[in-house]
């Protein structure tokens, strides 16, 4: 079965110049050239994009949701990284 199915690809689209590529979905294709064309035909039928990235899904490594607490909670108490943590006197402009 697996042998017969075309590989799965993840599709990333830049919707306009100046913006990041954003994940939009996936599709099947036999090779990279076809994946890009399929992405164009599937995901940009309404002028949604100016640039396409595809990557075979099996090449994506993801963080484990079980590690979410260890990975992301420690950032919670670093409020001093955010500008709103600091009080700026009203008379000071442009900071």
């Amino acid at each position: 079965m697996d042998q017969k199915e075309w590989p799965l690809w993840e599709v990333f689209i830049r919707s306009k110049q100046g913006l990041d590529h954003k994940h939009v979905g996936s599709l099947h294709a036999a090779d990279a050239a076809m994946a890009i064309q399929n992405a164009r035909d599937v995901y940009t039928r309404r002028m949604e994009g100016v640039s396409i990235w595809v990557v075979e899904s099996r090449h994506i490594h993801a963080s484990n949701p079980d590690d979410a607490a260890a990975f992301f909670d420690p950032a919670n108490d670093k409020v001093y990284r955010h500008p709103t943590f600091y009080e700026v006197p009203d008379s000071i402009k442009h900071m």
Partner: protein
Amino acid sequence: MQATADASALSTYSPEVRQLLFNYVLQLADTSLLLGHRLSEWCGHGPILEQDLAMANIALDLLGETRSLYQYAAALEGRHRSEDDLAFLRVATDYRNPLLVEQPNGDFAHTVVRQFLFDNFHYHFLQQLQASPDQHLAAIAEKSVKEAAYHLKWSAEWVVRLGDGTEESRQRIEKAISKLWRYAAELMMPTPTEQALQKLGLVPDYIALQPSVDAYLAQVFAEATLLIPQNVPPQLGGKQGRHSEHLGYILAELQYMQRTYPGMKW
């Protein structure tokens, strides 16, 4: 749609040239219509969803081109016929598309070969047509050439995949080539109408296109490890209204509504 021709530009043509251009534009329109129609028959029946979408996109491009061309033809004719009148209300012998584009879809290999033979011509032709002194044709060509470039990429890549894929795909595409090759020559065999307009410098001369069309075909076939058929007697006539039996059946479907309910708005 951008080719809604204004009368002033058209009035520079003599009645004879206008008639020639009308016939010529009609031929281009019929060609896109018929191929788009054939491709649209695949919708819902493609070998995989992704390719179903791809073929529908190509069909939609061709239908868009068709409409611009019929609108221009209607303006050239100046008898208040609409794009739909021209598309739906003529008899089979008045359609001027080459035989290739009315051939049935067959299996996917037949569709790919038919598409590649056409796209290879269409793309190179539109490139030249952009330089036409006729501004309406030039504008239509400028829009359509980008679409045709994509179509050609699609069909050429499939020729390579099927030619250099499995034993079965190779057999199938070879069969499709041997069946469809006889219709390829007509694309660039000028009719008297085309010759007259070529002489006036209004439309591209096929002789000038031939080298790039041949070169690209040779390149794609080489990559696909396919042989180019030699000395196949060509089938001609579609561009002058002498069609294969297939056209009648296409028109029976295409014209069904317009013929059954004449003069109504849809």
